């Protein structure tokens, strides 16, 4: 996950006023005080919600579990939500389209050959809703994740980390004038507890105040290093952060947090909250397979999981299953960690790249690469020991889940049955922004 506040389209968390019984459980449990209410409705503040999911399972009604893709700048305000008598429908795609074009790594899902089948999703909408298949439970063999150790509701509100590394991890940005680059930043927590797992994220609080004098709200970044540290045995972790230099209309704008982070020097201090996330976690049992699908900085959690498996393999004490990676970017030059990925043994990880803007080459997206590997994916998806992880731009999520559906149906299986099982058993994890 990358800075929610700096992406064009967010998955906005909303409460269905028709089903909610105003029991206050969600407001009482939210670690970042994103939920509030009046006499009519309970509502979620999009600028505070960090998608930690703590409120989901305790809700007795299921009303808490509603999501709408929204242009960030048009996210429903608290004031709007308080007046609702029912949830608004999803925005039509044409309203959302174009909003992500400005993003160099936006992979626009190609139109599927056949119209997607009508799927009854939990919200009762009769359209294909990819996020309906995302699990909210972790794999059965996931390690226990600590979350919200630091935050508005914790005893200690923030913890200070020290920058111990900051390097560019893309070819892009090496030459003057093209600083649209991605950085690998290492934070060290010294003696302060900050236990994390692969797939979790942290919040960074940029210093200073915004245009109207309010303290900046935290931005969320996925952790790119394994549980035992960027450097094994050290209390540190790494992040993958891309500079935001233009808004979704292509106009110049400097993302507050991403530029602050990319410009940090070794020795600088950063205020951090978190960790967040208790379901996008990797399996730990022997011979469990991991299929990773990502674009751009969505590779952060994939790097974390891959590196943990690599370290386990090196220890010789763990029998890992298959690792498969589908990695999309505009060009090879913009792909973070391209070099290090190339040096991983082929019998350890099966890597599939998809570049959408390589000159002289047809556009290729991650879902195209997935369809090419349908035979192998069909085998994997039927194995209860296989876990799927999707991270990157919201615009790719639907294409990826549709590709997975095609793979399943191509193998003569029923998607509703298989997709339902993937969700129920905590085997398909979607983290898109």
């Amino acid at each position, binding site marked *: 996950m990358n800075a929610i506040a700096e992406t064009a389209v967010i998955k906005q968390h909303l409460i269905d006023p*028709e*089903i909610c*019984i*105003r*029991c*206050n*459980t969600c407001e*009482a*449990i939210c*670690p970042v005080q994103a939920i509030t209410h009046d*006499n*009519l409705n309970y509502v979620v503040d999009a600028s505070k919600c960090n998608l930690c999911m*703590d*409120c989901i*399972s*305790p809700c*007795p*009604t*299921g009303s808490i*579990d509603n999501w709408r893709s929204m242009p960030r700048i048009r996210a429903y305000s608290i004031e709007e939500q308080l007046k609702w*008598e029912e949830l608004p429908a999803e925005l039509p795609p044409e309203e959302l389209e174009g909003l992500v074009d400005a993003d160099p790594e936006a992979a626009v899902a190609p139109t599927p050959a056949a119209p997607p089948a009508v799927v009854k999703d*939990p919200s*009762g909408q009769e359209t294909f809703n990819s996020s309906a298949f995302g699990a*909210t439970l972790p794999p059965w063999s996931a390690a*226990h*994740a600590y*979350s919200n150790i630091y935050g508005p509701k914790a005893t200690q509100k923030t913890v200070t980390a020290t920058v111990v590394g900051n390097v560019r991890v893309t070819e892009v940005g090496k030459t003057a004038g093209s600083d649209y680059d991605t950085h690998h930043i290492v934070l060290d927590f010294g003696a302060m507890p900050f236990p994390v797992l692969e797939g979790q994220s942290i919040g960074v609080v940029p210093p200073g105040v915004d245009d109207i004098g309010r303290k900046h709200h935290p931005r969320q970044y996925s952790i790119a290093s394994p549980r035992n540290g960027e450097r094994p045995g050290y209390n540190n972790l790494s992040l993958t952060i891309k500079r935001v230099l233009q808004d979704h209309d292509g106009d110049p704008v400097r993302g507050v947090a991403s530029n602050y982070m990319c410009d940090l020097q070794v020795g600088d201090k950063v205020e951090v909250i978190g960790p967040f996330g*208790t379901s996008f976690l990797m399996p730990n049992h022997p011979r469990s397979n991991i299929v990773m699908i990502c674009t751009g900085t969505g590779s952060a959690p994939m790097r974390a999981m891959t590196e943990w498996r690599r370290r386990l393999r090196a220890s010789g004490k763990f029998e890992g299953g298959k690792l498969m990676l589908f990695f999309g970017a505009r060009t090879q030059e913009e792909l973070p960690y391209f070099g290090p990925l190339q040096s991983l043994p082929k019998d350890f990880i099966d890597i599939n790249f998809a570049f959408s803007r390589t000159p002289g080459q047809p556009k290729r997206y991650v879902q195209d690469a997935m369809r090419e590997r349908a035979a192998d994916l069909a085998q994997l998806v039927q194995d209860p020991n296989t876990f799927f992880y999707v991270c990157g731009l919201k615009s790719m999520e639907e294409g990826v889940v549709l590709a997975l559906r095609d793979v399943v149906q191509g193998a003569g299986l029923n998607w509703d049955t298989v997709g*339902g099982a993937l*969700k*129920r058993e905590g085997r398909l994890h979607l983290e898109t922004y």
Partner: protein
Amino acid sequence: MSTINYSEKIPNNVNLSEDRTLQRALEGWQPNFINWWDDVGPEGSTNHEVYLRTAVSVDPQGWAQFGHVKMRDYRWGIFLNPGDAERKIHFGDNLGEKAWQDVPGEHRANLRRIIVTQGDTEPASVEQQRHLGLTAPSMYDLRNLFQINVEEGRHLWAMVYLLHKHFGRDGREEAEALLQRTSGDQDNPRILGAFNEKTPDWLAFFMFTYFTDRDGKFQLSALAESAFDPLARTTKFMLTEEAHHMFVGESGVSRVLTRTAQVMNELKTDDPAKVRAAGAIDLGTIQRYLNFHYSVTIDLFGADQSSNAAIFYSSGLKGRYEEGKRSDDHVLKGQTYKVLEVKDGKLVEKDVPMLNALNEVLRDDFIADSVAGVNRWNKVLEKAGIPTRLTVPHKAFNRQIGALAGIKMSPDGRVVSEAEWEAKKSEWLPTPEDFAFVASLMGRVVDPGKFAGWIAPPVMGINRQPVDFEYVRFG
């Protein structure tokens, strides 16, 4: 053979194993609890595996674990919300002082009474609902009933823990007595009136869980403010579970209304006889059930003027609903509150000292919260194009407790003569015929995804499962 880990015999987050005496006492009470469950818990459910939500810890990840378990194997345990060593008393005469971790001697009797009264309601509702499983309108509803039952059992555990830990021998005796009183028993009834009423059918159950469990919410909220920290922490955690109970009531009535409106529209009729003939519950009957459960429930808040309420507040034992969100002085001395009384055959308001009127304050908070839900029910009718609206009756209607007890009052707030009351009673409160009709609809429907004809399916399943999921596996 693995050795039994005795610290796990009673799941808890209160370091029970460090207090061997307490642990032994509670382990001694445990078999009696299981016997009570077997004797008067849900009838004929011993071999069912039920898709239950179990708390394994109090953090968001731990307290909503779903899975099929036999109810007897449900992990009843003792869970308190995390404590704050620096917590201060935030109302009453001791405002600003440190919250108590132990019971101060001068408040012992009152605290014991509060905890016993609250504790007594928990097993009572299980007893009241024990036959409902035999007439469940669907497997989904059956699961919800069982979820409520096991959680009421856990709430009993929560109160028994406080009695055992903080009240010595008296507490242990009270804990035994909680299992000896029985709802509706002539000789040894439950403490509060509403908990000796029958819950004869599912409409009554939905009304009970909507109104009476909401009383639970308000009582627990008031106790969650207590200066006695263990009581505050245990009731805070109970509140998270109570939410599901109110959901069952609110959504249950809502689904009954959905089905009734559908039948009325299909038949293009508002004639109760035709609606009944079509196997749905007419709106008049629903309104009468509502009147009954509402009036019985608001009696639970106690007398409108009560010196006990003043003492409980000033001494810090029991706060107001959302005490922390109120912006007054939290001492309330010299302030007044309006209560109702009848003068010369008319209802009049009079100012009384606020401290003495705190039962009424809590009752009025409850009323506001109840009305909001009734308005949501009315939206169901509005959407279906049905002009009828449900209303809550006047708060002086059908009261048995306080200054308004015994006054003959119509639901719309008119003081009426004895003759008019007798003539109209059957329009205002459920009649034996109403009960007989609703009982006639109560047939057991338990095939996954099937629903009785008098109720609509829910909008969504439990824990994102489909509506036709196998919520109960019959052993």
